[in-house]
Each structure stands twice: as structure tokens, then as C-alpha cells.
């Protein structure tokens, strides 16, 4: 049996003097899996992947990548992984092809520059200086530099942050293509829709710890329920959580700002019951909406905060 792509136990990273960026983190990523680290800004995602990438030394903990360790096998490992950093400024006045060719030359074996450029759909920009590329094109070029070494394991740190919706979708297509080829991908994001769409499994990270782990569907089912009903009462008498929780079909109640969020598996029971209860108490509605539960709701349920503020 081959070793998992990543195995990491009790990872701690402290930045002197007093920042505890990663606080005892355990992870295991299987080969061929697309694994997401989902969490708000400052959760410790970048620090975690940079330790996994062998770019930062952990304060404590044990890291094994592709069955090897950075301390002893760094040179061999570098040739087998590809990565994009959260922010890299590639040289302004090199063309797309020159950048890819330079990175290709650094690997002992890999893919041809034209093939990689086609993979990230930058053929038309092949001879353009990188300073003339849009944000999305630059990010795809960064992914191209991660692919030239034909890596077994790929790390993408916030690949779509700051991109417009169309560029994000183009990048998702690239990642979906990589998944189809059976590559192991670890990506970090603070977009729950991205994690839900791309990742086979997700670790939700907060304050340097994994607070939930599983497939997106299982996480939602376990921590939230299928549907979420959000409503904001108008001015009038208050509502107590216990009464709402007792309504038929309601599995849980959370306060969300001015209003409430009810989680339920049976929308058809919960909504009429809620309306009847509000009516009976003479409470008017300022707003009412329902949506299918998402990882955002999981994060809310676990921390009481939103992923992005």
C-alpha cells in the first residue's frame, strides 16, 4: 500500500514573539484526492501549507509528504510537488512562454511548455509579457508554473482570491481537469462555494486547528441539516430560542445578527409551523428566506461567525 499523499500530526507553528499560527493540526490526505483547507483570513491555512511544502519549519509536529520527510528528502520531494504561493509576482517583462520555460528548466522531468500553457488556456497570451496579463490570467500562469514538473501533488494557496467570477470559473475548470487526471490537489480557500464545488474532502480550519473534517455533504448534514430558514422579525415582542426549537421539523436555532436561522430537514413542516407561531405571538416579519445549507452554515454553527466579514 502506498503512503498517503500527506500525513501530518500535531503540527504547531509559532511566530515569535506571540503568534500561534497553527495550534496542533492533524491532517491526512489520500492520493488522488482534492482536499480543501477552508477557513477565514488568519486561520493558519497559508502557514500550514507552507510547512507541508517544506518552505517553513514547523515549531513542533510530524509531517510526511508522499511518504517522505523534508528533513531528509527535500531535493527529491521538490521534484514531485508543484505549488502556487498565496502571492507571487512573476517577472513583469518575461513572456508567458519564457516564464513557463524557465520553470520547466528547473525540473529534472516534466511536461512541455506548450502543453502546460494549453492546459491553463493561455495559448493566446503565449508571447505577452506577464505585466500585460489580467489577474485571472496571472493566476493561471502561476498554476502553469506549478504544473511544468508534472507533479504528483499540487498545492494551490487561495487560487481564486480577488478574481472576478468569470476568472474564478476558468480556474475551477483547470482544477477540475487536474482532478480528472487523478492528481492529488490541496487547495486553501475562504470561499465555501469553491470548497463545495472542487473538494472531495474539506478541513474547516479556525485559529490554527481543524474544527471539522469530511466531505462537504457530510459536514453539512452533520452540523447543519439540509435547509436553513433565515428570518428577521419586525418590531414587536421578543422571541425565545426554546420556543423556536420546539417547532415541528426544526433541528436547531441560531441567532444571526438581528434575526434567526433555523435548520431543518423538513422545510415543508418547519415553514408553516414558524409562520403560525409568529402569527400567534403577533410578531411581524421584516425578512424571510430559505436556502440549502452550505459550508458557510457549518462554519457559523461551529463558531458563531461568518467566514468572510
Amino acid at each position, binding site marked *: 500500500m502506498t503512503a498517503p499523499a500527506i500525513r501530518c500530526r500535531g503540527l504547531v507553528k509559532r511566530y515569535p514573539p506571540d503568534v500561534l499560527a497553527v495550534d496542533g493540526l492533524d491532517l491526512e490526505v489520500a492520493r488522488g484526492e482534492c482536499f480543501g483547507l477552508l477557513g477565514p483570513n488568519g486561520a493558519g491555512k497559508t502557514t500550514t501549507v507552507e510547512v507541508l511544502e517544506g518552505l517553513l519549519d514547523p515549531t513542533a509536529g510530524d509531517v510526511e509528504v508522499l511518504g517522505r520527510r523534508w528533513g531528509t528528502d527535500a531535493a527529491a520531494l521538490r521534484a514531485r510537488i508543484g505549488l502556487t504561493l498565496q*502571492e507571487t509576482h512573476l517577472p513583469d517583462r518575461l513572456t508567458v512562454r519564457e516564464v513557463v520555460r524557465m520553470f*520547466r528548466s*528547473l525540473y529534472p522531468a516534466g511536461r512541455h511548455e506548450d502543453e502546460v500553457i494549453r492546459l491553463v488556456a493561455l495559448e493566446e497570451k503565449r508571447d505577452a509579457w506577464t505585466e500585460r496579463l489580467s489577474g485571472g490570467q496571472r493566476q493561471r500562469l502561476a498554476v502553469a508554473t506549478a504544473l511544468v514538473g508534472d507533479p504528483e501533488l499540487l498545492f494551490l494557496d487561495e487560487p481564486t482570491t480577488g478574481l472576478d467570477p468569470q476568472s474564478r470559473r476558468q480556474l475551477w475548470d483547470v482544477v477540475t481537469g487536474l482532478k480528472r487526471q487523478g492528481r492529488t490537489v490541496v487547495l486553501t480557500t475562504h470561499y465555501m462555494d469553491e470548497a463545495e464545488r472542487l473538494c472531495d474532502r474539506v478541513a474547516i480550519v479556525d485559529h490554527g486547528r481543524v474544527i471539522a473534517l469530511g466531505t462537504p455533504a457530510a459536514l453539512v448534514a452533520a452540523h447543519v441539516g439540509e435547509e436553513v430558514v433565515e428570518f428577521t422579525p419586525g418590531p414587536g415582542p421578543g422571541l425565545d430560542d426554546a420556543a423556536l426549537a420546539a417547532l415541528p421539523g426544526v433541528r436547531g436555532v441560531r441567532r444571526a445578527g438581528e434575526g434567526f436561522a433555523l435548520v431543518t430537514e423538513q422545510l415543508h413542516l418547519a415553514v408553516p409551523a414558524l409562520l403560525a407561531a409568529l402569527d400567534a405571538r403577533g410578531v411581524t416579519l421584516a425578512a424571510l428566506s430559505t436556502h440549502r445549507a452550505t459550508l458557510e452554515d457549518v462554519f457559523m454553527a461551529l463558531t458563531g461567525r461568518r467566514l468572510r466579514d
Partner: protein
Amino acid sequence: MTERHPPGALRQLVLARIRLFYREPSTVFWSFVFPLALTVALGIAFRSRPPEALGVGVVEGPGAGGVAAALVADRELRVERLGEAAAGAALRTGRVALVVQPGTPPLLRFDPTRPEGRLARAVAADLLERAAGRRDVVGPVPAPVTEPGSRYVDFLLPGLVGMNVMSTGMWGLGYVIVETRQKRLLKRMAATPMRRGHFLLSFAAVRALFLAIELPTLIGFGVLAFGVPLRGSLVALAVVAALGAAAFAGLGLLVASRARNTQTVSGLINAVMMPMMLLSGVFFSSANFPAALQPAIRGLPLTALNDGLRAVMIEGATLLQVAPQCLLLAAVAAGSFALALRIFRWS
């Protein structure tokens, strides 16, 4: 679809460096155009002129004609006949170095703190004595020399070459490496299987290549346009310049080894270069500084480089004669490289 036999990493890194260099007009300007322009400007400003005549004013009045006639006999003097007041004003403003008041004896008015004043007085007195019938006994024969090699431009050119080697090395390595670090590209490249030595070697190779262009351009220009002599061997010149380039590449790497942003490294580079530009004899001889400072000045790499270049170019020194300078430069290069590599920060 795995493709083997990658194109050489070092070659690609060097190519990238060269492309980035010539696609950035400002770096081309500072390394090539600026030193040439400076040589032209300073060469013209300080070009050798025929010796300038000394102005002498003769105050109008009885006997003025005779005095003036005696003084115009010498081409070193430019004689003007002036009124009393005008003569005083001309002396004060420096238009004339000496005012002669005809009489018996004639009166010579000059400012003894000005060398031209004292010179004009001596020449004028000599001419007046001769005109009055003095016979010269010894009759020394003047033999003027204008030897190439002793003019200002001959002093200046090796200094500018040294300064250029210093600044292209310090900026070309120091600034560019920190800029690469600040853009997080250094970290990105360190995350590949790249041999880290190759990355640094690419900078050294590009420096050597540009030196092979800069140096002949600057020196060739000085030789052709100003007739600056090139008396020593080209090999000795190349060795001194290459060691100088290595020393300043090492110092550039050293200032870049920890700095996180380009402001910091710019400050460091200027702090290293400015004192040397003043002390190491670029524009004027470092002999002008007090004797107490001389040992420290001799220890500066730019002094060694400039002295070595001047000795080879102007005095025709052999490699053996500039061995002390070469050793100092080699030591600076080795020391700074070794230290820089120990403390270098890749992220």
C-alpha cells in the same frame, strides 16, 4: 507525456536575467549610457586648454606706453591700459592679476594670496628689468611638456571605470535580488528543485557578461575620444577589473542577503558606495585627505580597484606590481560571498 532532458537550468536562468535587463530601459541607461555621458561631460569640462594668459593692467599716465611695450613682449601676459579707478576695479574682480603703476620705480600692485598675482608680479618684474637693460647670465631654456597621462581626463577615466564596476555590481545584484525576494519570487523559485547555487551563479554570469561589454566600451571611448593612454597589458587590466567586479558582486550579494524590501537595500547600497565615491579617488585624488585617514582609505575596495586600474592604464604597471590591490579585491570577494551565502534568506 513526461518529457525528459530539460533545457539547461543555468542557461534559462541566465537568459531570463539578460531579458529582464535589456527590457528595462532604466537599467540599461545607468549601466551603459550614464558612465559614457559622464565621461564626455567631464572630459569636455576639464579638457586641456592652452595655458591662459595673465591679465595685467597698466595705469594710464606718463611712461605707460613704455611699460606696456615692455610687457607685451611676453605671450604669457595680456596687457590692458586702464584708468586709475578701472585698474583698481579690474584687480579686485580678478580680471587682471596685477596692476602696474608706471613711475620711477614702477609700482606693482597685486594680491599675494592669489598665485596668479604672484606669478604676474614675477614675470612683469623680469620683463621690466630686461627692458631696462639687464643682461641674463644663466639663460635657462624652457622646455614645456604636455604628456598624455598627466591630464585630468587621464586621472578621471580609470576612476569612472572603477565607480561603474562598483555601482553595476551593487545595484545589479543587491537591488535585483531584494526585489525578487520582495515579490516572493525568490521563495517561489526555492520551492522548485532548482539548485540554489545556480540561481546565484546566474547573477554572476550575467555580471561577467555585462562587464565584458561595459569595460571595453568605456575604456575604448576614453582612448579614442580623449587619447587616454593604455600602457599596461590588456590581460592585467582585465584581471584587475574582474577581481573588482567580483568584490562588488560579493558586497552586493551581502547587502541583499537579509534585506526584505528595496528601500532597505537601497539605503544599504548607498551607505556602502557613497563614502567610497568620495574617499577612493574617483573624481579627485585620495591623497587630498589627511594622512591619518590614508590607511583606512587604502583598505577600501574601490581604492584598490581605482589604484590598480590607474597603475595599469597610465603607468603601465604589470600584474605583479598591482598584486597588493588584486589580493585585497580577491579577499573582499571571497569574504563577502562566504558570509552572504551563510546568512542568505530565501523567503
